[in-house]
């Protein structure tokens, strides 16, 4: 019997239509994805665990393992949360449930979402569906690999400095980091509270917009959330007439951007012009000069405090010792991997008496400048465009020993995260046979605009989101394999 659906090609919107027309039941759909997971997760390690029971009346979803799921172990990729089973759903998980979505499983992540490759997961790295020798990006590499390899129609990630956008770029998905404050963080294992945002990953901009509309909006459990000023609009326009797109002047001077990435980016801009958009320049000097150091003071500072609760007293594994303080020290020493330890130390230092003003305090001032700079840049244009990642996917192990090289992966995603602005990554072509991501940044609450631009470009680019090596036997929906270009 042929598979009931081709999970590699099926978009969430198509899956929803199948369920609505009762052509496929939620349980059949769930089973189809579990079967795909059974086939390919061994190689990709996208999921840490899967869920068999189907409770929702709609389609399945994958959730990054930093999102608390009632009754389902949630480890944030860390040994220190091994065996921790939340007694409550994160608000985003609850909203998915309320929309009828069924949890397929929890996807791999760098430990506490700290990383750009998933190599920092205590449970081992995920692999890129385009080439399993390569990383899928991170920290949300699990969700990105799952969506890319047809192991989920869509999923949720969390983004602090690029953890949704960068893996989406490296795996050829669409990913949205929403405006800070539009999606609840309640129940999401915290990395850096002033930066963390949950967002959707899917195969199309419309799917991403749809999932965003399900999770967004004020949550009384999260004081930093607000109601959306306007409802989410599913984009359908194919032209970009009258839209103004700006490219930061500083991009041209960044050596870190690979030529192939730059070429794909330029082609996307050319397409935007052909669709009627006006492509110009803007200026973000502070962002590219000080964004990284600013981020690596603020994020670790908040992390050092957020990770203090993992003390072995109330949940998670405990390493017994003679005294309380020894117990805490040994539990944390054994429970945390190298990257959280590194960031706890960086952050503790940045907040210490005598250093606060020079480091954390100074970084907050830079952040204010950066926010202002983005506001000014966006005053006269609709979106800012850059490549999402300076490189395509890189080999596992390539940067694992060099934290600074790893941190540089987020060079282009970090500034807008600090500014709290929405950013969408869409695939815009291949370089060295690997996906390249285009990052579209909008003003605060400008999701509808980035969706519109992203959708029009997506149609014009016509990127095939199915990894080349998986295409055999998988036809574009409604077509035969012979017709696949």
């Amino acid at each position, binding site marked *: 019997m042929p598979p009931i659906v081709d999970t590699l090609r099926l978009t969430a919107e198509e899956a929803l239509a199948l369920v609505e027309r009762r052509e496929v039941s939620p349980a059949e759909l769930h089973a189809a994805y579990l079967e795909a997971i059974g086939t390919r997760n061994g190689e990709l390690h996208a999921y840490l665990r899967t869920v068999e029971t189907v409770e929702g009346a709609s389609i399945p979803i994958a959730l990054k393992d930093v999102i608390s799921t009632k009754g389902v172990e949630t480890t944030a990729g860390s040994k220190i949360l091994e065996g921790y089973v939340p007694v*409550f759903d994160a608000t985003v998980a609850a909203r998915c449930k309320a929309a009828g979505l069924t949890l397929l499983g929890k996807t791999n992540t760098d430990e506490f979402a700290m990383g750009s490759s998933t190599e920092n997961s205590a449970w081992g790295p995920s692999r890129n569906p385009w080439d399993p020798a390569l990383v899928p990006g991170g920290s949300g590499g699990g969700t990105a690999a799952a969506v890319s390899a047809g192991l989920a129609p869509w999923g949720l990630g969390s983004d602090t400095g690029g953890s949704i956008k960068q893996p989406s770029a490296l795996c050829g998905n669409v990913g949205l980091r929403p405006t800070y404050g539009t999606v609840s963080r309640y129940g999401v294992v915290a990395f850096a509270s002033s930066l963390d945002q949950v967002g959707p990953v899917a195969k199309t901009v419309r799917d991403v917009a749809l999932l965003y509309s399900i999770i967004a909006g004020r949550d009384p459990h999260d004081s930093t959330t607000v109601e959306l000023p306007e409802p989410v609009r599913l984009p359908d326009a194919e032209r970009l007439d009258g839209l103004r797109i700006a490219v930061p002047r500083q991009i041209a001077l960044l050596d870190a951007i690979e030529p192939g990435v730059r070429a794909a980016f330029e082609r996307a801009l050319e397409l935007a012009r052909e669709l009627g958009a006006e492509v110009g320049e803007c200026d973000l000097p502070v962002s590219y000069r000080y964004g990284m150091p600013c981020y690596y003071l603020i994020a670790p500072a908040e992390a050092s405090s957020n990770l203090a609760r993992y003390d072995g007293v109330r949940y998670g594994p405990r390493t017994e010792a003679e005294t309380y303080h020894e117990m805490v020290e040994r539990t944390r020493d054994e429970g945390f991997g190298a990257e959280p330890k590194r960031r706890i130390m960086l952050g503790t230092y940045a907040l210490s008496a005598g250093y606060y003003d020079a480091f954390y305090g100074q970084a907050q001032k830079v952040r204010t400048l950066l926010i202002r700079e983005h506001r000014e840049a966006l005053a006269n244009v609709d979106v800012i465009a850059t490549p999402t990642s300076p490189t395509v996917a890189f080999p596992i192990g390539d940067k694992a020993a060099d934290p600074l090289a790893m941190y540089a992966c987020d060079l282009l995603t970090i500034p807008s995260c600090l500014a709290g602005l929405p950013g969408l990554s869409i695939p815009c072509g291949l370089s060295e046979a690997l996906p390249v991501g285009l990052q579209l940044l909008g003003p605060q609450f400008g999701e509808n605009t980035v969706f519109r631009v992203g959708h029009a470009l997506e149609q014009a680019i016509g990127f095939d989101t199915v990894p080349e090596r998986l295409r055999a036997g998988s036809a574009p929906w409604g077509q035969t394999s012979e017709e696949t270009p």
Partner: protein
Amino acid sequence: MTWEPVIGLEIHVQLKTRTKMFCRCPVGFGAGENTQTCPVCLGFPGALPVVNRAAVEWTILLGLALGCEIPGQAVFSRKNYFYPDLPKGYQISQYDLPFCMNGSMLLPTAECDRVIGIFRAHLEEDAAKTVHVGGRTGRIGGADVSLVDYNRGGTPLVEIVTAPDIRSADEAKRFLQLLRQTIVELGISDAEMEKGTLRVDANVSVRPEGSDELRTRTEIKNMNSFNFIARGIEAEVERQIRVWESGGEVRQETYDFDAASGTLTARRAKEEADDYRYFPEPDLVPVEPPAELVERLRSELPELPATRIRRIEAELDLERATVLVTGGLDRLWEETVGSGADAVTAANVIANTVVGAGVDPGVVSPRELARLVEGRDRIPRAAFDEAIGKLGEPGFSADSYLAQEAVSDTAELEPIVDAILAANPGQVAAYRNGKEGLLGFFVGQVMKETQGQANARVVSELVRSKLSG
């Protein structure tokens, strides 16, 4: 050399809001261990705080009662340290932008109104309760097991920090009594030291009188009554004076006061100063109390205890006025006087007899009390005492007690007085040598002999005339 104590207080007040500071768990005592908890107050991964609006309003109300400025923006900050009673590894508190700043409280004294500065009053969450089982110290270091009850964790807590304006242990005690009464009257806390809803730490130093230097201070903790606070401060002041006078140097240390022995024990000195790595709480947005709210709260402030002491003092004296006000008795006193009772007699009866009889002053009828106060000299003492004891009963009437008549007939009382005087020659001699305070002793003996039926005033006059004769 004369030494002057310099004392500042840090006062923690648990607010009696319905729910906790940052979650919806109920606040209160008596529930089973760890039953009033949720993911937020247990610090589960991903749980987030939401500010309790009532706690914010009450903090501002208290700040206004203490004459504080209410800045336009207040910020919660994280105070980072590890302890099992602190589930998140940090306490959400306030640092550089508290709700209330730069206030003062007046402490009426015979000479003047002493102004005790209030540096700040800020809002934070209380820690959980730890019990250290086994070991000798009762502290975490020596314990076999430490148990944590998170019910208390997350209770709204206001910390009030005074300026080092207090100059004696007694003044500290009087300040605290007045502050406590202010808090209780605002209805925001029971402020009971025994229950831990009011906790006080004292910072103490001494300096040569007349100097304005600030010498090294020490901190005293674990004093759980106003009297112990006074004794603890007294002991520490004496200790510091001894250290300085013997050529030593006071070191910055923290002491625990042991009420049983009246001694101070230094805690193990820390190698370096605490670094709590305060930074603004990113899970909360700054709170900007609207001016209308502040003005509404200001208009709701009752007449403050210190003001009332000054007002009542005019009719009584400072001592009696203070006792009435800090005992929450002044309203009953005013109404009793308003119903025709003599001011001083009413004050004495309320502060001594009514309180001594354990009667709740809130349920007493001032009119009936006034009748009793006025009739006190005419009725038997036993009848008066019995009436006071029943003042709190619903529908109490003084009629039946006032109908009784005390024995005022000197002919009847004289033999009894003579007998008492004859039986106590020593006291008689002492009285005649100037110990006039013994008058009460003789009156008491006569009252005992007559089983409370004698008119105390008549007896008193009789005794006096006999002894001066």
